């Protein structure tokens, strides 16, 4: 903690040579992202010679993408938002309990969360498929919200708990002395105080559910409910002769990640250092 602060406090010497090297590294690493945007702006059908720079941007790829995938993007949005609400509603109280109460078995609970990260998604999908089939949850939005939250809930518990551990216990105790019940202390003190960690956890659970591919692939069998990840998979599953609309869909599906990275810098940084679990 102190060393990082010290390092940050020492004035950065202007060494633009390193900056140039870092920009070069970034350019190589982000080339695929550039290429995605570039290819999405190429005219339809000219798959043979994609120009390196989109000098004459053509938006027919986007027109096709939107006409074919708008519904799927909407489905993904609903599922991701639903998963955020469900994950936070489940994870925040649990994180509070693990951080504050000396509940017997809290250590076991944390250990179980870590072990859960080792369970391959295909194992979960295999069992859920049969259960969902019996319960009629296949091809349903609630079914996918429930399943997709498996990506987010363990992560959210760890991140929110780590933050709540750092919150002054005296504040909550003061509230309890004033006669606030557990639930009131939680809603009016703990939740507002841990706003940042809730936002971080919420952003990541959104991203996890939005990016989910495995459950979309295994827990849907018809066209009725189709997240955009599955839409892209179907595009590239067959022979592709219109890459511009595939790439346009890919760009649209990347928007949440890009927006989060640019607009929510500090929350993302908190998430990547706060919980090493994806």
């Amino acid at each position: 903690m102190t060393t990082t602060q010290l390092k940050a406090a020492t004035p950065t010497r202007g060494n633009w040579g390193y900056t140039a090297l870092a920009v070069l590294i970034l350019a190589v690493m982000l080339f695929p992202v550039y290429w995605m945007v570039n290819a999405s702006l190429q005219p339809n059908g000219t798959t043979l010679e994609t120009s390196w720079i989109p000098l004459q941007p053509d938006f027919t790829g986007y027109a096709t993408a939107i006409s074919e995938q708008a519904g799927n993007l909407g489905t993904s949005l609903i599922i991701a938002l639903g998963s955020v609400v469900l994950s936070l509603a489940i994870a925040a109280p649990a994180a509070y309990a693990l951080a504050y109460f000396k509940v017997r078995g809290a250590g076991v609970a944390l250990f179980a969360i870590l072990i859960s990260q080792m369970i391959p998604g295909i194992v979960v999908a295999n069992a859920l498929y049969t259960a969902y089939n019996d319960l009629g949850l296949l091809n349903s939005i609630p079914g996918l919200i429930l399943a997709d939250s498996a990506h987010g809930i363990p992560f959210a518990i760890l991140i929110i708990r780590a933050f709540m551990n750092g919150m002054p216990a005296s504040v909550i105790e003061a509230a309890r002395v004033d006669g606030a019940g557990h639930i009131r202390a939680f809603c009016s003190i703990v939740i507002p105080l841990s706003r940042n960690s809730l936002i971080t956890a919420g952003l990541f659970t959104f991203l996890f559910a939005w990016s989910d591919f495995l459950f979309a692939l295994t827990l849907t069998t018809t066209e009725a409910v189709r997240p955009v990840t599955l839409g892209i998979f179907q595009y590239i599953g067959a022979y592709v002769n219109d890459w511009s609309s595939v790439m346009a869909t890919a760009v649209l599906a990347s928007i949440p990640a890009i927006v989060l990275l640019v607009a929510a810098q500090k929350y993302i940084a908190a998430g990547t250092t706060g919980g090493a679990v994806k």
Partner: protein
Amino acid sequence: MSLTTDASRTAPRAGKSRTASATSPAGGSEKPPPRRGTRARRERIFQWLFLVPAVAYMALFFGYPVVKNLVMSFQDYTTATFFTGEAPWVGLANYAAVLSSSLFSTSLLNTALFTLGSILGQFGIGLALAVFFQRKFPLNGILRSLLLLPWLLPLIVSSAVWRWILDKDSGALNRFLGDLGIIHTGVPWLTSTSLALIAVVGVNIWIGIPFNLTILYGGLQEIPDELYEAGSLDGATGWTAFRHITWPMLRPVVSVVLVLGVVYTLKVLDIILGLTNGGPANSTQTIATQSYDLSFHEFKFGEGAALGNALVVISLVFAVLYLRASRRAVDE
């Protein structure tokens, strides 16, 4: 356990706050003594209420699948089961079928190569970049955080983009290599049985670099400057300083990164399905993709479950190795 404490910067504060709450007079609600027993019990029930939804969710979406998968692996569980509701017990037949098939050894080898190659690449490049970004230069923070982008993109998006970049006839990579005069005909990156696995590993390395970079960078930041100052007095700079100061101090973080990397790489499915679908001729088939194939294409859910369990066992072996290693690190 050490996973959370190692990774989170808040850990030191966490310890402090816990002792603070323990030494301060116990919770205000317990101060008036009358009818302590019922109060304490009510208190305990309230505390559990906060945990119940999470416990129930974890039990239903992690516990149940593991148990159900174990049961299914001993059953003849096929599409017919969905109509008749009957899944006859077959003992170890599913395991025998799966483990004796010639595809299993291919998948096992591919899984090992895929995991080893990915981890070596991600870790090596991630560490090099983390060391590089320790230097102080303008825009360091912004450039470093932009590097996270490959990690945040949906995996299926990355797969689609790389499919297009690695395309044999008009992919960007072949055109770039062609313009440089390195190649004269298109390299079939994803359609050649000898190259597909290498290409898939390469893409997975690209995806994993940001994670390795971020965690290792955090670990490097925690190493006190004084150690380097003391070291430089003894003449330890550059590579010597890295070998004798950085690496030993970074060891705990390294073990976390490597074990998490292995566990996550073992279960990768999206990237392989998106890039090659396990082909050509099973040259990129791993245990995870084969398990998916058995369950959801051949509808042999019992065999798919058996293979999934094999994957769980492999993951657990690594988890145990990790726990033993971290305990030894604590003992030392």
